[in-house]
């Protein structure tokens, strides 16, 4: 055991027992952040704030929510919205944060792609981040089901039916996941468990891992410059803070982050107060009806690009059935960005505007994703179906063919 002496202060008392100062230095005081980064690097802290908002408002909602197919709809739309004081606020905050968190996740991820933050030593940051995206998708979907409205019900029907595409055991697997022959009460209760218990625990664990993966290779910067963090930290600690290329996370960087968090929260509060409707689908204010499908079903905006890839393949190609092709393409789209460090065959870490071919590729990808998102919401008939098909093929080609080719060319050009 450590040698304990009479404490000289409260801080010293804790320091002797749980090394508080040491812990603080590891987490913030001597965790080094490059100076040349801009507001786009604040997205991580904004995401942490949004997750906290979701967690706290979720706790308040779960006190009145009833996970029962007969009671769920009214517990949300009557009890929480009408009876519980400020229940409407928690619900709207929860729904808006769930929607906006995906906007920030997408910005966060594409900043990473733009600046090449997924490669050369930072692969684990990227992979744990993609893992977070995947689990957040499951979390969002399981939460979307809980109000038990028409759109919730049919989203659950369609998503669980996707597992029917698994060879041989498909039908049995769908029944097993639902716990019934169709989506019903057992399905609701198990998705409730996933949404409020298992997935949040998994999320928190991966968030911690994601933070930890930053600790060794450190944050990338605006120039993709390789900084000797130990050397620069020494400079900073010896008092030469001006010439050091790094600042400590606290108070240096986090104070700047807090400013951006403040800007963001003003925007967020505005959305919650005046535009909460965008996170609420009108069809979901009809109670779930197993006997009638809404005429047009679609997911929330942040899944539209994947949804469009699912239905982009609307005709059979050779021995492949259209439905299987679509399901395969969507399953791949869901995990496709995991492999960014593999598609990019060049080891240049630089912002896209300094890599000509990559720059064009990046914006083509963004445009393609926007087209997929827009057409994901439109009815899939006639001309729209063909746009869906070509933009789905374009997505796959951009990642699997174009990116490896241009990055191999870039590598050879550099030699």
């Amino acid at each position, binding site marked *: 055991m450590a040698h304990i002496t009479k404490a000289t202060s409260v801080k010293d008392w804790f320091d002797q027992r749980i090394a508080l100062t040491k812990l603080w230095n590891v987490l913030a005081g001597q965790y080094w952040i490059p100076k040349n980064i801009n507001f786009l690097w604040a997205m991580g802290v904004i995401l942490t704030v949004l997750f906290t908002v979701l967690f706290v408002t979720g706790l308040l909602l779960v006190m009145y929510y009833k996970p029962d197919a007969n009671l769920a709809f009214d517990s949300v739309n009557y009890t929480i919205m009408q009876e519980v004081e400020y229940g409407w606020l928690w619900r709207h905050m929860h729904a808006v944060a769930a929607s906006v968190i995906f906007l920030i996740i997408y910005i966060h991820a594409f900043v990473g792609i733009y600046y090449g933050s997924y490669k050369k030593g930072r692969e684990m940051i990227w992979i744990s981040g993609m893992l977070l995206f995947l689990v957040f998708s499951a979390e969002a979907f399981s939460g979307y089901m809980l109000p038990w409205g028409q759109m919730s019900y049919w989203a659950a*029907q369609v998503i669980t039916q996707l597992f029917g595409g698994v060879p041989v055991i498909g039908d049995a697997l769908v029944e*097993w996941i639902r716990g019934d022959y169709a989506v019903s009460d057992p399905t609701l209760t198990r998705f409730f468990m996933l949404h409020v218990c298992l997935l949040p625990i998994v999320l928190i664990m991966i968030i911690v891992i994601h933070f930890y993966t930053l600790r060794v290779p450190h944050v990338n910067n605006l120039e993709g410059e390789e900084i000797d963090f130990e050397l620069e930290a020494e400079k900073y600690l010896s008092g030469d803070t001006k010439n050091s290329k790094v600042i400590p996370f606290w108070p240096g960087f986090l104070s700047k982050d807090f400013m951006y968090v403040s800007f963001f929260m003003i925007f967020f509060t505005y959305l919650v107060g005046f535009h909460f409707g965008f996170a609420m689908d009108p069809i979901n204010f009809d109670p779930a009806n197993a006997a009638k499908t809404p005429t*047009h079903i679609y997911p929330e905006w942040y899944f539209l690009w994947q949804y469009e890839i699912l239905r982009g393949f609307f005709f059979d190609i050779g021995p492949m059935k259209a439905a299987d092709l679509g399901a395969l393409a969507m399953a791949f789209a869901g995990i496709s960005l995991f492999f960014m460090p593999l598609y990019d065959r060049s080891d240049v870490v630089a912002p896209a505007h300094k890599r000509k071919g990559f720059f064009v590729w990046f914006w083509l990808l963004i445009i393609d994703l926007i087209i997929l998102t827009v057409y994901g919401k439109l009815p*899939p008939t006639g001309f729209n179906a063909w746009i869906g098909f070509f933009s789905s093929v374009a997505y796959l080609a951009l990642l699997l063919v174009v990116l490896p080719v241009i990055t191999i060319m870039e590598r050879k050009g550099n030699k």
Partner: protein
Amino acid sequence: MSVKKQERRDFIGMAFGAVAAVGGAFALVGMKKSWDPLPSVKAAGFTTVDLSPMQAGEFRQVEWRKKPIFIIKKNADMKPNPARDVVIGEDKYMVAIGLCTHLGCIPSWSPSDMMFKCACHGGEFDASGVNTFGPPPRPLDIPPFKIDGTKLVLGEEGPEYKKLAGIA
């Protein structure tokens, strides 16, 4: 530590591994089974429909195992389909689970052109339940049934069902 002691540690490690593997396997079986449909859900899996009051050309929707079942009493305008029609006496019926074989939405019956149309992804089925357009990979599924006079018992595999399903 002596080599001999290390061997003992290895043995303890392997013994623990074996116990954990067996226990883990049993636990996984138990967890899998907790997710299976409950006995009460399975028991509610039979529905009887009397077909005698149906008119020629009439479309009817009933519920079986929380799924919609489409029944059409075919009239002269509707093409017979020997591979799929349920024949009771002189009459031919179309009986199918009313869930699009693509992703499980409920197509709606359009009597004017005698087609089922699925709004979600544009799939279409004819009056025999055969897919004619769009992403659905196969015709509408036929539920297991038994014929009892003019009554249809859904959930039991009668000889007529086995013949249609090709498992007789």
